[in-house]
Structures are given as C-alpha cells and as structure tokens.
C-alpha cells in the first residue's frame, strides 16, 4: 500500500460486554483478499478507527492460530473508545496493522509457561494463551494467574470457566480484597501475593505478564524470588501512540520506539532502557 496511514475496513460481526466499560469486538475485513491474506503474530497490535473520531491502539486479542477474523478488547476511557463502544454489530471501523514485534512462542517450544495478568492486561496475554493452547503439545505445563479489582471487572468470564474446566492447565483467579461477592470461588488478594503463595517453579519456564504498572512492579520482585531470570519474563509496554509506524515521535522510551521495536520486551531489556516511563 502506498499510503501507510490507510486502514483496512472491517465489519463488527459480533460484540460482547466483558465487564463494566469493557467490550470485545469480532472484526472481519471487508475485502475478501485481505480476509484471506491477513496474518499476524501474537503480541502485535493495530490502530482501530472510528471515522470522525480518530484512531486508538489495541493489541490483537485473538490468537494467531485463528484465521478469518480478529478480536480486540478495550476499555472505554476517552474519545475514540467511547465512540467505538457506541457502535453496533454491522458497523464499519478501520484497522491498520499488524504492527510491532511479538512474543517468540516458537522459541518457547518444550517449555512451561506462566501467564500473569491483571485487569485489562488480559487481552494481550489471552492472544498468547490461545496461541499456545491451540498448539498445546508444543508446550509443557501451563499456569495462569489472573486478577481484577472486583469479580465484575474480570474479563473473558466464559473463557475463564473453560480454562478452569480444562485439565491441561492450571488457572488461579483472584480479586482484590473487597472485590469478592456471593459465590466467588477464586482467591481474594492482590496478584503478586497470590502469585507468591502459588509459588510456580521457574525451572524451564517462561513468564508472560501484563497489567497495571504497580502489579507488574511487585510481581517482578516475586518472580525474582521464585528464581525467574529477567530474560525469561516477557511483557508489553504501552505508550501513547498515533502513527504506529515510527514516525509521529511520541511513543519513545528514550531511544526506543515502542510502536516499531516493541511492544513486547523482556524484563531484562526494559531494565536497560532510559528511565522514561
């Protein structure tokens, strides 16, 4: 395409309310050729646009193993996300991407994977989870720790039930103290605390962690105590983005342009960056 800012058009085929203010969209590209040829890697993101309102950056929340559609899950926070959440099934939006790097799931073959997510940090992790579950035989033990502020704030509630029912993975779900309600059968406690209690082994294990900065910060020290090396802990960095292609100049952390060189980094790589967070 000669105009790098030109989005594909996509139809909202389905729409789910995940949690208060959080929605998931199923998107299908209008152009059959794009629908056929579109590929991405887990961890990549796109710019989704509501014409007349602008563009917003979300990860592709569906796995790279499922073709023909993509999904995004977003929280309503501002102009574009509000406009997007007011659309209906059948409406058209724009999509540019896929952009950025990805989780090196190929390199993880034969390893155990520990997933840690907090709140709206689950969408990028969910893409990796399903990518790995769809190739289940390639990986060892799969463990997930997922937490949200309250029971209502948990996203992908149905999938959580499905994952709980599977016997080829361990799911530990938790809500912040005070966020539990009648019938809650998960843990009560902050993600780092619950993680420490669960104490998953670090041997031959990679970790994928996404969520609010405080959760990441405290979880990282827990992971260190559990014996995880910074090279084996992966996360994504989120900065404000506009172009997504390394031009507009705002997503940089020091000399690193997150949109082009990220958003996926190991904890070791992040420690080497300029303190520009």
């Amino acid at each position: 395409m000669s105009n790098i800012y030109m989005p594909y058009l996509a139809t909202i085929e389905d729409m789910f309310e995940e949690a208060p203010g959080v929605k998931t969209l199923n998107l299908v590209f209008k152009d059959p050729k794009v629908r056929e040829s579109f590929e991405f890697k887990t961890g990549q993101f796109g710019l989704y646009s509501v014409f007349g309102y602008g563009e917003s950056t979300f990860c592709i929340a569906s796995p790279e193993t499922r073709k023909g559609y993509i999904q995004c899950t977003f929280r309503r926070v501002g102009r574009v996300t509000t406009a997007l959440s007011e659309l209906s099934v059948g409406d058209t939006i724009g999509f540019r991407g896929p952009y950025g790097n990805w989780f090196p799931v190929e390199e993880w073959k034969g390893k155990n994977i520990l997933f840690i997510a907090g709140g709206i940090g689950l969408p990028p992790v969910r893409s990796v989870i399903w990518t790995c579950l769809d190739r289940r035989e390639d990986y060892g033990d799969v463990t997930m720790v997922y937490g949200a502020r309250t029971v209502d704030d948990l996203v992908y509630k149905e999938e959580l039930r499905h994952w709980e029912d599977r016997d080829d993975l361990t799911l530990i779900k938790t809500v912040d103290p005070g966020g539990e309600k009648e019938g809650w059968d998960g843990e009560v406690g902050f993600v780092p605390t619950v993680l420490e209690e669960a104490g998953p082994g670090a041997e031959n294990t990679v970790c994928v962690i996404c969520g609010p900065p405080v959760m990441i910060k405290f979880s990282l020290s827990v992971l260190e105590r559990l014996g995880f090396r910074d090279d084996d802990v992966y996360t994504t960095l989120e900065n404000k983005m506009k172009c997504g292609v390394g031009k507009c100049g705002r997503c940089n952390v020091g000399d690193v342009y997150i949109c082009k060189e990220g958003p996926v980094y190991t904890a070791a790589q992040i420690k080497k960056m300029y303190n520009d967070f």
Partner: protein
Amino acid sequence: MEKSLLKKEALQKLIDGVREKGGRFVAPSILARQVVYREVDCADQMVHDYIVPRNSIKEFLFPQTEPILRFRLMREGVEVEDVRVEPERTVFFGVRPCDAASCGAVRKVFTWDYIDQFYTRREDSSVMMTIACTSSDDECFCTTVGVSPEGKEGADLLLKETVDGDYLVEAVTDRGRAFVEEFKDVFTEPDGAELKAVATPEPIEGVNIDNIIGFLKDRSHYNSEIWAELARKCVGCGACTFTCPTCRCFDMVDEGTYIEGERRKNWDSCQFDSFTLHASGHNPRDTQFKRWRNRFMCKFNFYPVKFSARGCVGCGRCIRVCPVRLDITEVMIEVSEAARDV
C-alpha cells in the same frame, strides 16, 4: 557544465520557466516584516540580503496540516478515499546550507522501514538551490555541529554570490545537472567575477559534540539533576520544535462533520504535555524538564545514534524564537562540561 552563472536579471526568467511547467518557486521573501521562505511568482518579491529565514523549508515538504484520507459516512457504511500526493515540482531557491542539510534527517525518519510517501514524494520532486552564507548572526552555529556555511549536503545546486550580485552555480547532484540543462537559456557561462566572502561562524568554545553524544548515551546520566536545572526556564510553548528544520513529529486527527471529513496529519511537539499523556492519566514525561530533555536527547542522541542523521544543523532558529531565551548552545556547553567531569 559543472559550473555556470545565474545572472540576477535572469531570475525572473527562471521563475517563469519553472511556473510555466507547473512548478512552484519558493524563495526568501518578506512577509509581515519578516524574511520567510514562501512561494513567489516575481523576482521582485525575493530578498537577497537575509541570514536565516524565520521558517524552515520543512513546511513545504511536510505541511503543517495535510489530509491523509477522506471518509464519508453513509447509512450503508463508510466510504474511505485514499489521498495520494502528486506534488508539483518545487524549486527551493536561496536555501541555506543548514536547511538543505536538515532534509536528510527528516527523510531518515519518514523512510525508517515504513515509507511516508507524503514526505518522500514531495522531497523527490524538489530541486534544492542552496546559497552559501555571506552573513551570519549571533545565533548561527552551524560549524559547531559540523555543517558548513558553503556545504553541499542536501543541495542539488550550490550557489555562491558574486560581488556583482549574480550567482556562480555548481551542480551537485544529477537532478541539479538536469535542472541546469533544462533551463540552459537561463544559466550562462561563468564570467570569472569575484565571489563574496563566505561568512563562517566561529565554532562555539566549550562545545564538544562527541562528548555530548557520549554523555547522553550513558543511561545513568538520564536521571542527572542537571536536566531540571538546565531546562528550568522552559514554558513548553513548542516554538523551538515548530521552527526546527529537523523536527517532524505530528498528531493524527479526524476532522469534519457527521457525514464526511478527513483524517489529517498536523504538526505536534514533544514539548507539549498532551503529547505523551496516556488515556489513563499517566504521563511518562509529566514535567517540562523531562520534555525538554527529550528534545535534547532527540537532537544529540536519537538522530545521530539511532538514525545516523543530523538532529541539529545549527540554524539557530530555536534560540531566536524562544520566548524565555533558553539557548540550546548554552545547554550544549553545560553538557559538554558535565561530560568532561565524569
């Protein structure tokens, strides 16, 4: 013919020739009592006695605002129309060597992997007629950053003024040679007239660019207290970045009515608080000194180290326009000194 002469009297013919072929002719000219690069159709509108025009040439290659697509919202859906720039040839006459040298930097960013054709197509259809400087002011510091006042970088043709007010023209690129060939009735044989002396600003004492780059590359200096100190005066107006020829940051916004509109690229600046403000309210560069530090890092680290390009060409514009006179060269001296001390 590598060298030719452009008589002052022949300028109108050149302007007419370029315009007749559908091109635009941009030259230093007076607008609102200031010398600016702008489109001219008449040689009388041009000025020849100027130092550095107020604006840089970037606004002709990377406009302050430009549509990148158009959309129409209908009951049946959305219709999106691509915008393809088909730029007319732009002849830049009287470009200062610092400005010509800046294009390489902007191009590096706009062609880094993804190619922004809004920029490249405009630059590719331009002819850069650089004129060596015969005067400079206190803000000029090209030589400090390795740019020469008679430098050829970015030029298609390098012009030097003769004492008679004509120009000795040297073709630098094939595009420049072809241009002279195309207008061979305008360019004549050199007449051996004496050239005016080139004005070469003294390199600023105490500045060592390698030391600055070295200091910035060392991540431990990012948290140094010198930044808050050095950038204390800055009010975050962004004027420095808008006038800077190598600044190329932009915003993308949708504008229009409920039924139709366009998506635009608008100039933006890392000096603004909203530039990096997340929707969550978090802002990685939440204070002005952090934004100023980013600008300095951009000029003397990201551009040279990451993009192998010039971040600063020493044009001095940011010093001239700064309302609080935060002089980048003073910071360069301070940082060079700090680098020596470690």
